[in-house]
């Protein structure tokens, strides 16, 4: 059967970007279907009835949802350019930190982004604490995976560039070069990786989008 790979995404979804990077790193040909979140296609709703979200990977007609699940699926299906190490302990470590990014790190940074004043001041220490924890993981390493990028780099990678957008929109410096030298170096190394560099959403468009998101949150205090 001819291989058919489709990716349902939006132009800006950081979770979808993880999948773009993984597919490109492994040299997998795929078709992109851009979704308009305010007007989701019937196909998307059919492929992801539980969450109705992007990204969704459809491989030979079979859909996979949730970005970390998709990454593991890609890793299991296409063995070239492995994203996970062979050693079980190192694999477990990578999975632990990828989960930490989604469960703790990103929500804490997001919380700083969608608040202001006292509420924001109170949100900052947790984000910093989580950033410290992940900074430690980079000791002696170029990427979280070592010399080349892997699961955790891909999981956290979009923050590598998005952080500058969030910092611009909030006027706050979260990843200070002095406090987080390893993260700073990592972001630089990441942005030099071909696949990452070539697939980053336009900066200005991101700034406008996140500015609008922050304004909505500050006005209503609730997600759209």
């Amino acid at each position, binding site marked *: 059967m001819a291989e058919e790979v489709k990716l349902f995404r939006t132009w800006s979804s950081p979770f979808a970007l993880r999948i773009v990077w993984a597919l490109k790193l492994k040299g997998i040909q795929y078709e992109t279907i851009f979704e308009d979140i305010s007007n989701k296609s019937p196909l998307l709703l059919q492929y992801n009835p*539980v969450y109705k979200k992007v990204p969704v990977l459809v*491989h030979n007609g*079979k859909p*996979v*949802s*949730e970005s*970390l*699940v*998709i990454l*593991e*699926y890609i890793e*299991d*299906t296409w063995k070239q350019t492995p994203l996970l190490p062979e050693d*079980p*302990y190192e*694999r*477990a470590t990578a*999975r*632990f930190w990828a*989960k*930490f990014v989604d469960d703790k790190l990103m929500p804490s940074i997001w919380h700083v982004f969608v608040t202001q004043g006292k509420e924001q001041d109170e949100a900052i220490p947790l984000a910093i604490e989580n950033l410290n*924890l992940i900074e430690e993981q980079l000791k002696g390493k170029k990427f979280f995976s070592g010399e080349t990028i892997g699961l955790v780099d891909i999981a956290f990678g979009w923050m590598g560039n998005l952080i500058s957008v969030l910092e611009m929109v909030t006027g706050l410096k979260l990843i200070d070069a002095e406090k987080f030298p390893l993260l700073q170096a990592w972001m630089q190394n990441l942005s030099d990786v071909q696949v990452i560099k070539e697939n980053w959403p336009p900066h200005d468009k991101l700034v406008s989008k996140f500015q609008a998101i922050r304004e909505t949150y500050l006005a209503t205090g609730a997600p759209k």
Partner: protein
Amino acid sequence: MAATTTSDVRLIGAWPSPFVMRARIALNIKSVDYEFLQEQLGSKSDLLLKSNPVHKKIPVLIHSDRPICESLVIVQYIDDVWASGPSILPSDPYDCAIARFWAAYIDDKWFPSLSGIARAQGEEAKKAAIEQVVEGLVLLEDAFLKCGKGKAFFGGDTIGYLDIALGCYLGWIRVTEKMNNMKLLDEAKTPNLVTWADKFCGDGSVKDVMPETDKLAEFAKVLMAKFRAPPPN
């Protein structure tokens, strides 16, 4: 694989925790002997804090002095290390993705709704919370039919990853049913899960680590009195 001594594999946990149970079931499936280091309610041992500095939570598997944290990460680790034993994750990548998807759904969406029942204030809120849990179980009933393909478990003929991910909550489901005098796993709405639940609890790798409902209910009362909070996570 060289024989491991009991102290080479240690599990920090507690008998009521569904998350700890996941690790114990996985170790049982692989016939791995381990030392069970039980934490006391209300305090955290130095070993736990040292082994899981990020979350400070159980379970923690310590294998050859190296800690592994997060229950589903631990289950996958056990499957990877003791590869000669029965497989826990499906071998087919797509089946594996489906199992991982539903396991994540169970933890991210469904379990919080289960905890929501104990936290709900007033009859209306409780009713709504219960409905949400049942809706989730109906989704899982459908998943069971698709994954199990007519066999006894989500994993097929034997217990697998998704069975472990959901099955660990059966003790707490039964306690919640008992304390609220209703059924969450219902013959009418989720008949296949009802059958599955009995098979799961009766399985050799599960029955010694699944707490008795009465004992768990007593523990729940102690917990609620102590912390005025829902079941442990």
